[in-house]
């Protein structure tokens, strides 16, 4: 055991009808991000630096729901949030309500490293960003045509569009069945791929774990809405034992303090990483749908989800590498 390990995600809950090209596009991005992370790990960057680096990549690429490509609020604007946590001393940083900060995860890191606080939001966070001299852009930069279209759909259906999809039907002929019985998420028929939250967890050669999560949140969300991604213990958690990033139904993740739960069962029940991830997905989500990626200080990586698919990738120092959707 031992050695470095890395896992990334682009969100849990995938439309089974997602066109092959979009799936391939997602897998290419996940692979690229993994490679960046692996390269950094080989150069002896610490876990906390690697998670930030990788999530920055995911934020910058418009494919997933974070940074550029973020889901839109009810007002058609972008409000982004992120959190980052460093296992060894459980230092953490989080931000919410960002509208001009190009890389929310990096601002979360600055909150952790350069402020006396753990969490800054909205105007206060933007002011801090200015003072720190991070790269700022117009809100329009984050808005993509795809998402403008999605927002319109969501408003027409007059409901919240969650950042994942689950089928309401069984496994036989999912594609055909979906045509007859449109996939539903909170009453909204889905026929378009929806963007997702992103995250990265890393354990470096020294056994240090770190985690980071970033998102634009729910499509058509109320302005001011905060989800699970910036909440330490819910969307993100890291300690001596492991690093965890979650994605999926925000409410379910918060109520179950999902990221902390993985670490808690390892710490208090002595479960290994895979067992812990399986346990929380099976037992802690009740009716909720979510996915988890995690690493342990022993160099293990694990993913778990009770949704239809989760965009993910993982790799370990012994040469194992896998990128998947289903």
């Amino acid at each position, binding site marked *: 055991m031992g050695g470095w390990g890395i896992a990334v995600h682009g969100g849990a809950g995938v439309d089974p009808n997602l066109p092959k090209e979009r799936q391939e596009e997602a897998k290419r991005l996940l692979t690229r991000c993994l490679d960046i992370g692996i390269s950094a790990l080989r150069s002896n960057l610490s876990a906390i630096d690697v998670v930030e680096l990788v999530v920055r990549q995911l934020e910058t690429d418009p494919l997933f729901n974070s940074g550029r490509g973020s889901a839109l609020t009810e007002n058609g604007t972008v409000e982004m949030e992120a959190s980052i*946590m460093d296992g060894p001393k*459980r*230092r*953490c940083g*989080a931000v*919410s*309500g960002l509208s001009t900060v190009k890389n929310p995860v990096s601002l979360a890191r600055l909150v952790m490293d350069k*402020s*006396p*606080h*753990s*969490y*800054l*939001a*909205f*105007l*206060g*966070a*933007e*002011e*801090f960003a200015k003072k720190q001299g991070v790269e700022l852009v117009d809100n329009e930069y984050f808005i993509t045509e795809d998402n403008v279209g999605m927002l319109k759909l969501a408003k027409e259906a007059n409901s*919240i569009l969650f950042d994942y999809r689950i089928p309401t039907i069984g496994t036989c002929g999912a594609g055909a069945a979906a045509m007859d019985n449109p996939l539903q998420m*909170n009453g909204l028929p889905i026929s378009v791929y929806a963007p997702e939250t992103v995250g990265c967890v890393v354990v470096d050669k020294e056994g240090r774990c770190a985690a980071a999560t970033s998102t634009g949140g*729910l499509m058509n*969300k*109320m*302005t*001011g*809405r*905060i*989800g699970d991604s910036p*909440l*330490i*213990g*819910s969307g993100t*958690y890291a300690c001596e034992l492991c690093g965890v990033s979650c994605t999926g139904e*925000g*409410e379910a993740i*918060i*109520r*179950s*303090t999902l990221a*902390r*739960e993985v670490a*808690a*069962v390892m710490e*208090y*029940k002595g479960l290994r990483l895979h067992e812990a991830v399986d346990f929380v997905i099976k037992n802690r989500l*009740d009716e909720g749908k979510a996915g988890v990626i995690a690493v342990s200080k022993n160099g293990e990586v694990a993913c778990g989800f009770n949704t239809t698919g989760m965009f993910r990738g993982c790799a370990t120092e012994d040469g194992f590498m896998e990128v998947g959707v289903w």
Partner: protein
Amino acid sequence: MGWAIALHGGAGDIPRSLPPELRLPREAGLRHCLDVGIAALKAHKHPLDVVELVVRELENHPHFNAGKGSVLTCSGTVEMEASIMDGKSKRCGAVSGLSTVVNAVSLARLVMEKTPHIYLGFHGAEAFAREQGVETADPSYFITPENIVRLKQAQEANRVQIDYTQPIQKEPNDAAAAGARIPNGDSQIGTVGCVAVDGEGNLASATSTGGLVNKMAGRIGDSPIIGAGTYANHICAVSATGKGEAMIRGTVARDVAAVMEFKGLSLKEAAAYVIDQVPPGNAGLVAVSSTGEIATVYNTAGMFRASASEDGYSEISIWDSPINFM
């Protein structure tokens, strides 16, 4: 078994030399709020209603750091936050960055019950408040002369402090050191919270605060974060107080329940265990279990608190030994 209730008005370096004119109003406030809670439980109100009711009273009391009497940000403004959680369903609601809402805890409850979200912050939360027609007041309503003084002292010391006054110290992080007294021996006030359980094992928790004196605008602490300042499930309900940043990284409220569940500790043992993990001088909590146990634990000099149970037990305290057994 039977009902039980515990509430707090903040943990911190409350000097034993606290003069009567500052101690007595707070004791009276604790007594009044305890009576309100007991009456509600006797009238078979659901614990969720009870904790909201009690925290509203604490918010309205100008000597506690919540609602009126909230400490001030570095800009001299008030930014209030709160959260509430129902144990059986684990439904929760939270708000941050409020400046005109008279009772933050009630707005948190409305977020839980009237929106598809869990957490609203800043301008979005204020807009929601207006939509809901909750009681609002001019920002000046919340500001008290004592807090203007506290801010001035903190700024002179160039420090962020856990809403209490101390002599000028050079170490910004050494909040618990020295324990010296300032000439007028002003009191320590802090976050407020309440936990309750009824005869059927229904549990609930709520926490509310103005945060840290001299905090950066936009700073969010542990009080609105589910798992950090507030938590309730079918095992227990917890409301924590102290240095937010320490409670966030320690997922304090969640851990009490986790330790009971996974390590089989009693409520009091679990509460002591968890507080022990937080650096001295930083945390306190009140908790009740589904079986009517009460725990009030802190590793600070004192914690304003009150508790009672159906068997006739009742207590109002500020100091005493850190482990408080019935």
